[in-house]
């Protein structure tokens, strides 16, 4: 979805302001927000793509007006309700009403280190042959879908060059909807700044974007008349 998260190239957000002291957390609740999000995710009721979609589905004014940990907490509340772990009433009252659904796992302190160390690899075997090779010129599809995708709108319809096949990975577009992992080839695609931004381009710079195969169409290479 081309929601508030789809920020690449958007203007008006002002300068980047690095902090001089840069605390890792800016309030005690941010520590808990990080840990709550990870621990609740470990229950296995949703996957990383579902949670990314929950965050980007927040209303634009809320999304852009929230700190990142606030975004995480607002999205976590939605996920918990959507997957039946917590009820709206419980969220409103701040009290558990007791009933509980079965979850895959409850993360215990002793298991945290192993869980974080193992991570969650997203590469998968893929039976199909890759459709693109390095050097191929491709055009990014201009599909504005209301569901989750990792195709940022600033490359929609643009022409780029496949630089590398990065391997096959879980396809976020289907995984976010609970429609399966659907392992799909993912490519590193190079876009010239001029092709993305026209007159607004910083000449000579280029943007590399990781694109899953269904985001791309091959374009016939024709020799330009000189």
């Amino acid at each position, binding site marked *: 979805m081309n929601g508030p998260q*789809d*920020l*690449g*190239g*958007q*203007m008006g*957000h002002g*300068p*980047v*302001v690095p*902090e001089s002291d*840069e605390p*890792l*957390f*800016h*309030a005690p*609740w941010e520590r*808990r927000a*990080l840990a*709550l999000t990870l*621990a*609740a995710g470990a229950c296995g009721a949703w996957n990383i793509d579902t949670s*990314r979609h929950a*965050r980007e589905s927040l209303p634009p004014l809320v999304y852009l007006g929230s*700190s*990142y*940990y*606030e975004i995480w*907490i607002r999205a976590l*509340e939605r996920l918990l309700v959507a997957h039946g772990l*917590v009820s709206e009433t*419980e*969220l409103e009252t*701040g*009290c*558990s009403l007791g009933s*509980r659904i079965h979850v895959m796992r409850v*993360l215990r*302190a002793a298991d*945290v*280190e192993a869980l*974080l160390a193992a*991570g969650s*690899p*997203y*590469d998968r075997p893929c039976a199909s042959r890759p459709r693109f090779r390095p050097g191929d010129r491709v055009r990014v599809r201009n599909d504005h879908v209301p569901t989750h995708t*990792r*195709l*940022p709108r600033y490359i929609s319809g643009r022409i780029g060059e496949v630089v590398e096949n*990065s391997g096959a990975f879980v396809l976020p577009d289907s995984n976010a909807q609970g429609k399966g992992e659907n392992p799909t080839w*993912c490519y590193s695609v190079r876009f010239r*700044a001029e092709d993305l931004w026209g007159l607004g381009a*910083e000449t*000579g*710079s*280029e*943007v*590399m*974007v*990781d694109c899953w195969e269904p985001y791309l169409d091959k374009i016939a290479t024709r020799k330009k008349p000189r």
Partner: protein
Amino acid sequence: MELRVKALETILTEKGYIDPAALDVIVETYEHKIGPKNGAHVVAKAWSDPTYLERLRKNATDAIAELGFSGRQGEHMRIVENTDAIHNLVVCTLCSCYPWSVLGLPPVWYKSAPYRSRAVIDPRGVLKDFGVELPAATKIRIWDSTAELRYLVIPRRPAGTEGLNAEALATLVTRDSMIGTGLALDAGVAA
């Protein structure tokens, strides 16, 4: 937010979905154990050991794991090397993807709308916000982390550091230099 998060933790604990002790361990891990020092070791070794750099180029995930750094948000690593000709800059325009295993948790600015929106269209302007100015001839290559690959920038090795060992070199490697919003420190600068 303080009360809201506390209430949520209480509800989830009472319902038996989470164990507060596990939350403590998660916080402890990212607050004290995993941080940019990990990445600095990787860079320093890449600078001082050509065979290691070669392994990083071929399979960064495995080469980084050799040093003991792996796991969540570092499952699929790639290195990108800065040269005189190319400067690499990493962003996640769609959310906040970042190589946790080597850099720890991302700073606020990395997750902010100004950085995410401008890095791809106005990279030199963004670098200026960090006090970095590159020669006009240097090409800027921006990596938008839209998939599960996580990018670690290998900054240029500062001049005059030939005599330094990996441990001393690591002190020159700033967190920002591994994102591309900074450069490695000059040998005289690091204490």
